[in-house]
């Protein structure tokens, strides 16, 4: 065969991930590094997220308290799972929150009926969400593109509407479902009247925290958070393995060209359905962990905006990348929980050192963007990220790096051209 010379041609970067040898845990070197980084970040999150000393003005930006740390990792799981479906197969489910919600309801019922131990609750959540996903997926995957999205949306909205109203006895409806002291809980001893049931792992309560005071800093190590973080790490590990498996490759092939895939002897449907179910189970796991950490379920977590949120998390972070969805989840949850709490008096506190009129002006300018204006900031950031970092936070970073490289290269080309021109004259 002729030798296809490619010198001078710059092939686009290979997408195959960490194909080289090395690494452990069945991961390539690059993936292993990423995974260890995530492990370290999870382990030290209470420090990393609490950079500002207690009582300082900037303490407002601290996110290292149990509830938010739990939310970061739990919604991270949700987004990782969503990304398995959307990032790999390109099927955009607009009803994924239904699986999270169904998982949560399953979890809380396990705690009501069986035991306050979170293990059965989490397993129950995963199983029930997986079954529900199998049904929804089986039906919805008959269609593709926007038709698929609307089918999933329809299922989720039906779930929400029913949970909020007709199914109130099962779901608690508007007020949500909570544990009660009089729940049967056949595996546990009955609680005395009026006692608050608390979720635990073999006696270790989810709410249990150890607080470490270092100077003016206060760090909280919460049992629930670490359990959720371990679940997240397992989920993340699973997703790396899945991305690099032949199964993952087939899913990417589904996204790329389903037609070719079927003429290649592969039936796309079971692959997409499997991805759908796996992704539903991830959502179920997230839902189960949510009730394990905070023992109540509100139907709103199945509303379309909740489904939209996980879509946004994934795209914002970078669909199809490993770590992107986790970053996206963190980003959105941070804004929801931190920026919404900056009120006028907090602002006034920050800028009190300015002359009065300047404080007023500054506060007036910033105030619409924080506190009750947090949605505005979030909306602006959504737009900014897609406009300036196409492909999300992760690819945005990568692109930035390549743009720098590319600049250098085109300059080289121009120089070459100039030399040629001179030679020609």
């Amino acid at each position: 065969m002729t030798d296809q010379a490619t010198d001078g041609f710059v092939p686009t970067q290979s997408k195959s991930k960490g194909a080289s040898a090395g690494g452990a845990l069945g991961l390539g070197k690059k993936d292993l590094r990423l995974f260890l980084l995530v492990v370290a970040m999870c382990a030290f999150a209470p420090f990393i997220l609490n950079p500002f000393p207690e009582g300082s003005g900037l303490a407002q930006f601290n996110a290292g308290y149990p509830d938010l740390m739990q939310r970061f990792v739990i919604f991270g799981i949700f987004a990782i799972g969503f990304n398995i479906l959307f990032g790999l197969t390109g099927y955009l489910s607009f009803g994924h929150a239904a699986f999270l919600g169904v998982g949560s309801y399953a979890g809380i019922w396990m705690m009501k009926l069986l035991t306050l131990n979170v293990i059965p609750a989490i397993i129950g959540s995963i199983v029930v969400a997986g079954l529900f996903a199998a049904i929804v997926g089986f039906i919805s995957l008959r269609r593709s593109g926007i038709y698929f999205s609307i089918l999933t949306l329809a299922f989720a909205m039906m779930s929400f509407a029913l949970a909020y109203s007709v199914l109130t006895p099962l779901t608690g409806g508007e007020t949500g479902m909570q544990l009660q002291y009089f729940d049967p809980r056949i595996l546990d001893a009955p609680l005395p009247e009026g006692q608050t049931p608390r979720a635990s792992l073999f006696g270790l309560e989810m709410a249990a925290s150890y607080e470490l005071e270092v100077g003016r800093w206060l760090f909280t190590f919460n049992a629930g958070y670490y359990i959720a973080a371990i679940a997240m790490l397992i989920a993340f590990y699973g997703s790396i393995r899945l991305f690099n498996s032949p199964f993952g490759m087939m899913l990417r092939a589904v996204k790329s060209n389903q037609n070719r895939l079927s003429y290649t002897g592969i039936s796309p449907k079971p692959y997409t359905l499997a991805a759908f179910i796996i992704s539903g189970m991830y959502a179920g796991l997230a839902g189960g962990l949510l009730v394990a950490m905070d023992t109540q379920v509100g139907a709103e977590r199945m509303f379309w905006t909740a489904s939209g949120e996980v879509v946004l998390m994934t795209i914002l972070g970078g669909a199809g990348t490993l770590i992107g969805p986790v970053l996206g989840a963190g980003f959105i949850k941070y804004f929801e929980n931190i920026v919404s709490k900056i009120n006028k008096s907090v602002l006034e506190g920050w800028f009190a050192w300015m002359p009065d009129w300047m404080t007023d002006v500054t506060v007036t300018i910033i105030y619409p963007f924080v506190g009750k204006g947090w949605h505005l900031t979030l909306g602006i950031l959504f737009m900014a990220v897609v406009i300036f970092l196409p492909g999300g936070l992760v690819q945005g970073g990568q692109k930035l790096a390549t743009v720098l490289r590319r600049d250098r290269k085109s300059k080289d080309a121009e120089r070459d051209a100039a030399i040629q021109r001179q030679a020609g004259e």
Partner: protein
Amino acid sequence: MDAIILQILNGLDKGSAYALIALGLTLIFGTLGVVNFAHGALFMLGAFCAVTFSRLLQVSYTFTDASRTDFLGNPLQVEVPYLYDILGESAGAAVIDWAVPISILFAIPVMLLIGVIMERGLIKHFYKRPHADQILVTFGLAIVLQEIIKYFYGANPIPTPAPDAFIGSFDFGAMIGFDAGSIVYPYWRMVYFGFAAIIIGAVFAFLRFTTFGMVVRAGMADRETVTLLGIDIDRRFTIMFGIAAAVAGLAGVMYTPINSPNYHMGMDFLVLSFVVVVVGGMGSLPGAVLAGFLLGIIEAFASMPEVLDVLPGINQIIIYLVAIIVLLTRPRGLMGRKGVMED
């Protein structure tokens, strides 16, 4: 029987609202291929055009009436619209009364401009981007727009009534031989229905009797080839977007007397309008209109007490149930074109 007629009327009217919103959405979504989550926001902006316009008409000066007091016991500040001074009190009041219909004239240029700015400034960079990116950016935009409205107008609904002449309802029952009062229908809803029919007809005529529609469809299917044929497709996309924004806006303007507008009314309608468009079939304007009416009528029937007695809660899910059934029996909705947003 009269109950059924009444529900058909209701369904047509609900349907005309759905159809009008879906029409605007499908111009952008089904024709330009942009998943425009800001479409609801355009509807909302249209409604607030009416609110703003009627407020502009009522710009007032104040004088202090010492003979009366306000709730704190201070002298009362009385507001008098400038319009009363300009046109005289009765004519001024009449103009203010007709604020909503008149504001159509105000809303058309405003919404066209908003549409054009939005397309030029933002959307045009997203035609080639994945749908997911379009969702993210237009959702962001929708949030920004609605937060801006919330900042200036608050979260509470703002009553924006129809002119007095249209208040009240028309007694169909008496006309067609049923008991008086058994089938009544509000005048304004009839106006809305007629208005929707006119707008839908106008958009159809425009796209049907000019090559514009064909060019835009072609441009969406293969932008590059169309440009290589010498067509400035960008300009046409901009016009299309402007029209869609204007249609959405007008739908909003006329809707204000039916339900008082609030800043999140766009989001409330958004999901529903996507469902309508998709059930109608991507890329099909008649499909969108048909689906709008179909879902409107079915929803009306599902809210009849007789139906609810048999199937409690069916009104909660009927739209989605119908959507699922339609999409499973007809692969591309009612009238969808092949290959439009199927991947």
